[in-house]
């Protein structure tokens, strides 16, 4: 029985990898995505990927396989099962999947893998990472420019280096506007529950507002919902994260720091589909439109032209290398 299954899987792998030779326009793809523990409806990171692959499905009509992991060990299992079933390419969502994906990618050298938010240095893996610090820098500037009190706030989710990277970029942006800008920072917690604790988010926001903060940037997944709501209730401002969350509370959401994981996921599938696949590391920063800030009909009244000009100038300077935004994870410290 076992032999039969693996043989069938092998046959599938072979057939799919050979496929590009026989097609010219669109490669035969059997895409798959393994969501991480947050689940595909986390209103944030995983959901961004979900939106990207859904867009791919809508545009091409190609179905994809998906799986949501529930524990550490399932990551490797799910990735392997996808590869065995002949899925190609396979997207692993989140840095936590990197070790598992590295292992499985070695076992299936002919299957193409993509990993978001981490680097796996293998010939069949596309690694997509973002310069969140650059995007955070810009929204930090916007916060400082908008603030009347000179105090801006940051609410992080779980206290991990990645979130400190957001915080560090934000702080740099705020201080770039004025050295005297005070940045109040809080992490929601130290367990994964911190990604989904709106009540705590609300409490932290309240206490920051009480300390004179009038804009809060929340990089905290579902916890952010509580921050935004409190900002609206207190008549203060908030900044969203990952996807464009401006629409949630028009008039309160100053902007959102965009991290285009949806584009990254979409492109991974699309490139394979169009036979344009490339492996290797893709670092998506401002220059690549991988990060940015959101301006739409919901927040256009909050952003003055002057602010916009300053931020656009800074963005250009970052792209040009005139401004160097320090990456927390490069030194494990926020010294710039």
């Amino acid at each position, binding site marked *: *029985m*076992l032999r039969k*299954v*693996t043989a069938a899987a092998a046959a599938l792998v072979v057939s799919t990898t050979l496929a590009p030779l026989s097609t010219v326009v669109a490669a035969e793809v059997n895409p798959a995505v393994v969501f991480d523990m947050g*689940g595909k409806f986390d209103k944030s990171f995983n959901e961004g990927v979900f939106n990207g692959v859904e867009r791919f499905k809508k545009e091409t009509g190609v179905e994809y396989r*998906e*799986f*949501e*992991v*529930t*524990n*550490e*060990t*399932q990551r*490797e*299992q*799910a990735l392997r*099962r996808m590869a065995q079933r002949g899925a190609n390419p396979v997207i692993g969502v989140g*840095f*936590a999947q*990197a*070790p598992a994906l590295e292992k499985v990618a070695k*076992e299936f050298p002919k299957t193409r893998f993509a990993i978001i*938010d*981490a*680097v796996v240095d293998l010939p069949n893996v596309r690694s997509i990472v973002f310069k969140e610090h650059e995007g955070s820098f810009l929204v930090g500037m916007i916060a400082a420019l908008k603030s009347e009190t000179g105090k801006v706030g940051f609410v992080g989710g*779980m*206290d*991990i*280096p*990645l979130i400190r990277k957001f915080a560090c970029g934000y702080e740099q942006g705020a201080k770039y506007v004025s050295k005297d800008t005070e940045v109040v920072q809080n992490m929601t917690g*130290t*367990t*994964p529950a911190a990604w989904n604790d709106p009540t705590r988010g609300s409490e932290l926001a309240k206490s920051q507002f009480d300390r004179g903060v009038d804009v809060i940037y929340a990089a905290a997944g579902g916890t952010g919902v509580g921050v935004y709501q409190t900002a609206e209730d207190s008549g203060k401002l908030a900044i969203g994260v990952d996807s464009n969350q401006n629409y949630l509370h028009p008039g309160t959401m100053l902007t959102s720091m965009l991290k285009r994981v949806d584009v990254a996921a979409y492109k991974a599938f699309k490139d394979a589909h169009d036979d344009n696949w490339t492996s290797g590391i893709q670092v998506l920063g401002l220059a690549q439109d991988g990060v940015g800030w959101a301006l739409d009909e919901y927040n256009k009244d909050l952003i003055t032209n002057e602010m916009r000009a300053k931020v656009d100038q800074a963005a250009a300077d970052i792209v040009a290398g005139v401004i160097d935004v320090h990456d927390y*994870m*490069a030194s*494990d410290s926020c010294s710039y």
Partner: protein
Amino acid sequence: MSTAPVKIPRWVDVGLIPVINIALAFLVSGVILFAIDVHPLEAVEIILYGAFGYDEALGYTLYYTTNFVFTGLAVAVAFHASLFNIGGEGQAYIGGLGVGLGILALDPYLPFIVILPLAILLSAAFGAAWAAIPAYLQAYRGSHIVITTIMFNFIAAALMVYLMVNVLIQPGSMSPESREFAEAGHLPFMHEVFGWFGVKVTPSPLNLSVVWAAICCLLVWVFIWHTRWGYEIRTVGANETAAVYAGIDPKKVIMLAMCVSGALAGFVGINEVMGVHHRLLLNFTAGYGFTGIAVALMGRNHPVGIVLASLLFGMLYQGGAELAFEEPKVTREMVVTIQGLVILFSGALAYMMKGPVERTYVRIVGMTQRPAAQEG
């Protein structure tokens, strides 16, 4: 003034009632599946095949089973002293920390054969130490063990996050994980072990911990039923007044039972950290400590029952994942719901069916025995 109680044979209590409970859980799950247009029988087939149908699946099932055996035994040992140890999760977490710290410190210098016993000792010592604090608070300060062990789960999680994020994280790493252990710190996978004997088995996370789990079952059985310490634990659990009468110090017994319990929970660290991930990371306990409570309840606190209950939960974890994989309509929340129903029926409501089943049994036996009695 005693009246002879109706004797309910043991198989009704340990066999029939758990089976009925599981059947009920599956029945309710079946209705849910039916409601979302998934054929319940097909779902069962997928779960069974996905859990036992081929060697990789079996590997995963047994890998989960290993964790449940450790945590189930942990809960059971404490339960024999009438202590409800809700802290298996935290003890497993800290046990894993012990394993991780030990291997990180030693793997450049020592060979596997030396590291293995040290790792087992460390996981036991760390798990036991984490259980010893609530045990001390219960025995000498009267704080309820349920409350303190729950609190210690949170403290363990917070401590682990602090250590992983600030101390043990591999420099330059994206996620809070330690460096990977050197080869000497890897517990061999079972597929590797089979490989040594020329048997080819598909890789799975199943590792030599499963053997240790089996040994632990035996050790727990001997400890609880065939040593004077087990005797004292059971005496305190069954009748603390009688224990005092017998010159047994319940405080010491509480400490002993909880330390053994914590040590057993700590062995999850051997399976996860040394056996599967080969690095220290966050959340490797994944709720196994809590599931251990249901396992122990269903297994009636006996190693044999715990092995069977662990297999059931291993099957649900692995087969459930396969179900989510195969049936797009079945989300992982649905799988968690099914697992939850089994826990609900076999754990929380374990005694719901006891009355009706025993009455029915008595009625049936009564009917078959009455003619005989009248003849006599």
